[in-house]
């Protein structure tokens, strides 16, 4: 308050002060920005620039060979009113997100709890269980997955031991998407590590007090572990949901880029890729990309809004 009244009492001094403030900023912050420059150039040139371009292109017809034609919102109109493949791919991706994310988180939590019992050689197990996450998004694993779930693949050879004739999992439209969901669950490593860190934060005396009061293990899990772990669950859920929406490589490799059999693995991202790079409709593909961005944004916003009802921070 006092400084403020002083300044207003002496307006002439302030006018003199302004350039010094600027020069101070220049002197103090310029080196920082200079060091940031490589990243800034990349961010503006490789992220913001293409994003703005793609927003513009989403309102055009653009086939790469001729210059873009402005078509207004008709790409978006077509998507929502006259494109069954848009809805088909949306269904596939939603199904994938809804099933793969909770199952993966549950599995990751289960393994994290097993590892949290103070077993010997923990670093080794941790590394082993993390391994699939490093490999999972790779082309090699997708090809391996194809072999495992093919008609005469590993899974069916195992089933044959029990006299069960399994279908060709990857080429049957009823099961093909599930092979991809299992592939995604298998990459439980990174949420597991985060869960493990979260579990380590829970004070042991709480469990001791609870068992003295005669609480069963299940009750301890529901009343102590889960509530105290909710911030970690929340974080993992958001990250994994975004990852699931973006999932592309496995479906691309396993179906040979087609989304077949009968579009049962036509992920939204795969449809986007087809429109852009198989059919050269860059405008429409850009519009698809922006709808995906909006969709992920909405899902994340809902998670954040709902979080105050179920996420317990240590207050």
């Amino acid at each position, binding site marked *: 308050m006092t400084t403020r009244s002083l300044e207003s009492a002496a307006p002439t001094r302030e006018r003199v002060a302004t350039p010094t403030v600027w020069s101070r900023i220049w002197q103090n912050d310029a080196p920082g920005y200079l060091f940031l420059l490589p990243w800034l150039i990349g961010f503006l040139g490789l992220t913001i620039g293409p994003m703005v371009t793609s927003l513009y292109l989403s309102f055009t017809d653009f086939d790469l060979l001729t210059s873009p034609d402005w078509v207004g919102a008709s790409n978006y109109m077509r998507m929502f009113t006259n494109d069954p493949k848009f809805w088909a791919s949306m269904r596939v991706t939603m199904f994938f997100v809804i099933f793969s994310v909770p199952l993966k988180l549950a599995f990751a939590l289960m393994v994290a709890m097993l590892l949290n019992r103070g077993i010997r050689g923990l670093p080794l197990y941790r590394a082993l269980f993390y391994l699939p996450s490093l490999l999972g998004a790779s082309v090699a694993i997708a090809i391996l997955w194809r072999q495992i779930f093919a008609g005469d693949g590993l899974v069916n050879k195992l089933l044959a031991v029990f006299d069960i004739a399994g279908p060709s999992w990857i*080429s049957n439209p009823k099961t093909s998407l599930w092979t991809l969901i299992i592939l995604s669950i298998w990459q439980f490593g990174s949420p597991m590590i985060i869960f493990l860190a979260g579990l380590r934060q829970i004070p042991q005396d709480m469990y001791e007090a609870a068992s003295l009061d005669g609480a069963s293990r299940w009750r301890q899990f529901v009343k102590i572990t889960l509530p105290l772990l909710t911030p970690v669950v929340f974080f993992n859920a958001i990250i994994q949901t975004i990852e699931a929406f973006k999932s592309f490589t496995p479906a691309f490799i396993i179906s040979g880029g087609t989304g077949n059999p*009968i579009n049962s693995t036509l992920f939204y991202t795969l449809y986007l890729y087809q429109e852009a790079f198989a059919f050269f409709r860059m405008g429409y593909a850009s519009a698809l990309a922006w709808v995906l961005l909006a969709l992920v944004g909405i899902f994340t916003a809902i998670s954040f809004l709902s979080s105050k009802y179920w996420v317990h921070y240590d207050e």
Partner: protein
Amino acid sequence: MTTRIDRRQFLMGTSALVAAGAAGVMPAWAQADSLRLIFWGGQARADLTYGVTDLYKAAKGTDVEGEFLAWNDYWPKLATQTAGGNAPDIIQMDYRYIVEYAKRNAIAPLDEFVGGALQLADFDADQLEGGKVDGKLYGISLGANSVASLVNLPAFEEVGIEAPTNAWTYDDIMTMGEAFNSANIRGGMKVISDGSYTEPMLDNWLRQRGKALYTADGKLGYDEDDAIEWYTLWSKLRDAGVCVSAEDQAIDTGAVETTMLVQGKSAIMPSNSNQLVGYQAIMQDTLGMIGYPRIAPGAGGGHYRKPSMFFSVGGSSAKKEAAAEFLNFFISDPEAAKILGVERGVPCIAATRDIVAPTLDSQSQIALNFVANLGDLLGALPPSPPAAAGEIDASLIRTLGQEVGFGAKTPEEAGRELISGANDILSRA
């Protein structure tokens, strides 16, 4: 000689490169005197192609810098380069895309070089015609091929029936299939792959009926009744267990090793004449080659000698004449011909064919003889397809055939949807 670049020189050099890149200027050394060539194919094709560019360098002193990609990656890359004004001088082009690229001036008409840099007097007339768009020459055919069925000959011996010849019909599939089923060889091998969603097979069947996939003005050349009959025909074969099941067929994603022929699930597979070499390379059983089945004994005209691929010259190339000279060398030099063989199809100049023929292995001989002796199977070259044909194939023909196979749609539903969907895509493009 050792060249040392200290850190300051390196920094200056790289920033100059970045500046040049930012200004859209190609560094001078990339322009030099060399030609840039881009093509699709595998390592085997690349080896042959680079053999010829080496020859060219030795003969004319011009460097030709090649780059090759798989088919699926090729078109996005080429379109991106073209959009960026950075297209190569020599571009391998397909019958499916030539109209689109020509109409957008992404490839250059070559008529001004004919008789000069390009000597085409002995070039097969039908192959020359295939490279024309609106009367102007945009592509030089690198070889002719035709659709063809590949036949696993030992499988027929095991079943104990004669392997089919060019005379075979769709009715024969049923009788041969029953023989296969009762013999039950190799864990239930079927006589034929499911061809219901193979575009060239539909095309061939339509042409025998006097129809076509597309008309000269880029419209659909067949109607609902044709499409329904097509799906019904294959449903009958599938229901009788004569062709492979939908579930097996869906394993085929287009890669050679995933096909029913290589997987040992069918004895006959619709394919192309220049692909025998590639299939035989990874199969133990001896393969034979026959035409696609006839719709009735004696019916023909479904096949045609298709330009398998072209070389075109980039529309923005600064060295069109030099590129045309290389094309001429590629198609007519005797030594180049010996290197290339029939890997891109049967050469289109009679003299070149005569040079090539004695040097071929037996599989290439089979392909060469097949294309040369199509007889009454041969019909006229159809007009090049509209730009949307690729999308109609990928998103309708392949998916709908599969949906009928899995019982998700009846042949009637699929037939109607094929026509309405294709018209929708054609009107959109």
